[in-house]
């Protein structure tokens, strides 16, 4: 029903489809690295499986399936090239929004451990709502802000002040 709107894989165009092979490529790189690291561990010693026994079996399977996945994705990307349209502007806007929220979350972690949970939570919620909500922002902040603050104080009380120290 709403697949074209909600499924980014369907929404992207041929040039972006080729980019889809990047993720299976990363998976293959992770799998091969894992396998190579497994070979440095003891596979079998003293008539019993060593620390590297299970990881090496896993690594070989992981690499084999990752390679199969990459080949399958490349073949799929090639067959899709003749059909479909270029990426819509909406998809790019959403990707940018996603990146901005990830950056805000990163800032939240930094503040979490430098300025404290309470200040970090307030600043993050205000910034996130200002970014995500386009109208009646003050009202939206007033709606959103009390909930995480109550949760933070509640959990702080339950954990005997593990979050906030006065």
């Amino acid at each position, binding site marked *: 029903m709403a697949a074209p709107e909600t499924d980014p894989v369907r929404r992207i165009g041929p040039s972006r489809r080729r980019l889809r092979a990047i993720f299976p490529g990363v998976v293959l790189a*992770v799998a091969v690295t894992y396998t190579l690291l497994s070979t440095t561990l*003891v596979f079998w010693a003293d008539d019993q499986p060593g620390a590297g026994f299970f990881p090496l079996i*896993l690594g070989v399977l992981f690499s084999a*399936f990752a390679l199969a996945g990459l080949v399958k994705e490349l073949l799929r990307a090639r067959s899709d090239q003749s059909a479909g349209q270029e990426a819509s502007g909406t998809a790019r*806007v959403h990707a940018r929004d*996603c990146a901005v929220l990830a950056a805000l979350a990163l800032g939240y972690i930094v503040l979490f451990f430098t300025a404290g949970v309470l200040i970090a939570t307030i600043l993050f*919620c205000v910034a996130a709502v200002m970014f995500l909500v386009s109208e009646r922002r003050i009202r939206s902040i007033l709606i959103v802000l009390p909930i995480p603050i109550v949760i933070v104080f509640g959990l702080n009380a339950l954990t005997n002040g*593990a979050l906030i120290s006065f």
Partner: protein
Amino acid sequence: MSNLLHGFSDVLTWANLGYLAIGVMVGMMIGLIPGLGSIAGMVLLFPLAFTLDPLPAIAMLAAVYYGAMYGGSVSAILINMPGHDNAVASSFDGYPMAARGRAGQALVIHAVTSFLGGTLGLVLLCLLAPIGSRLAGSLGPPEFFMLVILALALMTGIVGDDKIKGLLSALFGFAIATVGIDLVTGQSRFTFGNPLLLGGIDMVPVTVGLFAIGEVLYSIYTGQHRKGPEAAAALPKLTFRPSREEVESSRFATLRGTLIGFALGAMPGAGATVASLSAYSIEKSVSKRPERFGKGAVEGLAAPEAAHNAATSGAMMPLLSLGIPGSAATAVLLSAFLVVGLQPGPLLMRENPEFAWGVIASMYLGNVVLLIICIAGIPLLARVVRVHFKYIGPIVVVIATVGAYLSHTSVADVLIMYVFGVIGFFMRVNGYSPALTVIAMVLGPLAESAIRQSLLISSGSLLIFVERPFSLIVVIVVLAILVLQLIMPALRRRRHRTSDDGPAGPAEQPIVMSAN
């Protein structure tokens, strides 16, 4: 029966009921928060529990355990964010039901099937405890390893058409589980010299990252935050009474889910997550219209709900009768037993029957309390689905961060959570399954220790997996499942081709989703 009645008489005091209510409420609330599962809830109540007598203390902690099962499913259904991995399967069809304006019905079905699953599981616990504990005690490493393979074989049925991506998701989870010190040889693995990784990568930050942060990023990527208020307003008026068809559809699914959940819950290591995913997978495979699954099929919600609540009852069987924890949560419960001065095992049932049966009786009462809370709270809970994503998103990020931090009060856990949040986002975008990664992380250590012990026993011979009767049966079942998975798509294609030539049968009729 007299033992159980005696247990009821012990637990039915105002003080005990009060502590039971505290446990149930804390479990329910903790379950609602993604990442803070039953273990965190039990740990939070430890200081209170250790000031109490054994019966109210254990009854309260057990109530957190099964109360979290109820709560975790509520967030899975309403905002597609399972409170814990046990509730992952409930989101597959629960969330599509809620998204189509049937949140009220989904929550009623969740409450009733959870209650039935939990209560019928307790009946089975009372009836089968002696027999089941004898069977569970006879299982060795080869059987455990084959049970893990069986669980994985069943789970490949839930990952959709791309089995390679499903397998890769699971292998990734297994790989994460191997990080840290090898407990047999003491050799460190994949730690890169970082002492923070010596203890392995904890489940809580990974689960919270993959499901909470990954979900928020994915929702923004798919433009949920840009949908105007008309999208929320378009939801029809909430109704809570399931249709007669939905009740009939969920009847046998609940029964099957209960039996599967109890059986898998009683097997140490399998647990509620495997139970709910297996129940979902089996329900889909026995359905005459499996194409409805993932789109709001009521059986797809009823079966895992009944299963993971029955699994909590099943998990109490090896704990009470053998002293073996069936899951991480029951392991925490076992440590609470020891702290209050009781040793779970065969002697517990013999020497402290009033305590053991009191705990079982308290679970009956706890399920009734949870049913009442769930039904009474539906109008409030169902409104969560109407809250716009741009308000929920920041709140989820805050709760996930605080939850990950509180699991061990560790900065590293928060960082790990965000790393896995990004991984989860890319997995979702590229069609991989974060759920299978989490499940494989749970099963990984069990699988590794089981295969290593098996090969140690057999001096390296793989024949050990077919030489033992129970293990051989599981091997045959696994092979049958794999063969079925290979031939079923071909059979379906053939059936579709046949139906294209003639009039459409019931299986090919278009699915009309109710707006209510």
